[in-house]
């Protein structure tokens, strides 16, 4: 019990630090250097993976742009999206909790980058020439090619887009395009153009705290790139869980954002 208490206290301290430090609208650190960089695993096969940082375990989001941390600076938006964002802020003030921009209550999964900011954990798998991110919420998978192949010219749009990555020292830099335009590029904004480009810089900032700095670029939405930071706490003793949204989803949201719940039990249920 004593050991548990100490561990919990330490965890609480770590989480508190993470929460305090996380989630500012800061600029990405572009000075990362390092030679381990070449260790994408592509050239050296599985031997190359031993040179990559240890990101094993399960990562729980503890500080996200809209929860648990300092809110980021407001985005600089084009007029059309500024109006949408202002309406969102106003509606949030007058009727807090209304789910007006999210279709996830209908089990439509979030696109990137919202998929990385869901409440349940993520996990990283390294294999030669590839980093795979498993996202528990909605059971999403991101395949990030680190074998040096370029982004395709004009990929077909998908929820998680098309990603390539490279290592700058111990920082994984991921570039993603081809994200479905009906997805949300940030909290309060619904939709974007086919030009949306997401850059993520992922690195350990403490032995068990992972930071992801996410920059959004879309000239039709953002006047200048918009960057937020999220932090994740490592849990080596957690296991990822299955999350099939269609298993028992009684919730819904209509086209106006009004939430509903079905509590009728059909025979046999």
């Amino acid at each position, binding site marked *: 019990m004593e050991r548990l208490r100490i561990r919990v206290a330490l965890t609480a301290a770590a989480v508190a630090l993470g929460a305090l430090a996380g989630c500012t609208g800061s600029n990405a650190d572009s000075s990362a250097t390092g030679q381990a960089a070449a260790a994408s695993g592509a050239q050296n096969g599985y031997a190359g993976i031993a040179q990559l940082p240890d990101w094993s375990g399960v990562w729980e989001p503890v500080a996200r742009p809209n929860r648990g941390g300092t809110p980021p600076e407001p985005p600089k938006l084009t007029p059309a999206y500024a109006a949408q964002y202002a309406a969102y802020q106003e509606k949030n003030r007058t009727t807090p909790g209304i789910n007006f921009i999210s279709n996830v209550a209908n089990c439509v999964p979030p696109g990137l980058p919202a998929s990385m900011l869901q409440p349940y954990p993520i996990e990283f798998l390294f294999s030669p020439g590839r980093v795979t991110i498993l996202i528990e919420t909605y059971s999403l998978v991101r395949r990030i090619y680190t074998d040096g192949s370029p982004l395709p010219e004009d990929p077909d749009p998908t929820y998680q887009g098309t990603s390539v990555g490279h290592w700058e020292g111990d920082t994984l830099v991921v570039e993603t395009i081809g994200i479905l335009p009906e997805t949300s590029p940030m909290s309060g904004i619904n939709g974007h153009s086919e030009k949306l480009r997401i850059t993520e810089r992922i690195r350990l900032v403490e032995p068990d705290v992972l930071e992801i700095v996410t920059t959004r670029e879309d000239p039709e939405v953002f006047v200048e790139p918009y960057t937020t930071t999220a932090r994740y706490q490592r849990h080596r003793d957690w296991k990822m869980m299955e999350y099939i949204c269609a298993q*028992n989803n009684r919730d819904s949201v209509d086209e106006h954002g009004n939430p509903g719940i079905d509590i009728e039990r059909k025979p046999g249920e």
Partner: protein
Amino acid sequence: MNVQMLMRAALVCLVTVLASAPGAAHHSTAMFEWGKEMTLEGTVDKYEWTQPHTFIWLNVTGKNGKAEQWAFEGMSPSWLGRRGWNSRTLKQGDALKVVYYPLRDGRKGGFYVRVILPDGRKIEAMPQRSS
């Protein structure tokens, strides 16, 4: 749920105060009177350990003596499963009290916050409110 598991769940909840904003992950909480705790006593008809939400279906004797069934949505296995709960924490026939936030529209349902067992033990089922 044994006592150790309950202690563990309670301690983890303390950590969670610092880590999480309260609320349901998957949808808006606007259909519930969020924060208004009500209590209802009954017998579990079914406990659904399902994504994206767990459900307690509770058989209750209504004010007029008539049998009623209530539906309580709860946090997901992804949340509860890491805080001491599992698919066997509640089972058919268990007598208990459910503390919940009621549906605004008056239907017989809500979002469960904790359950209280006949011996008085409380099992928390949500992030503890930090305010």
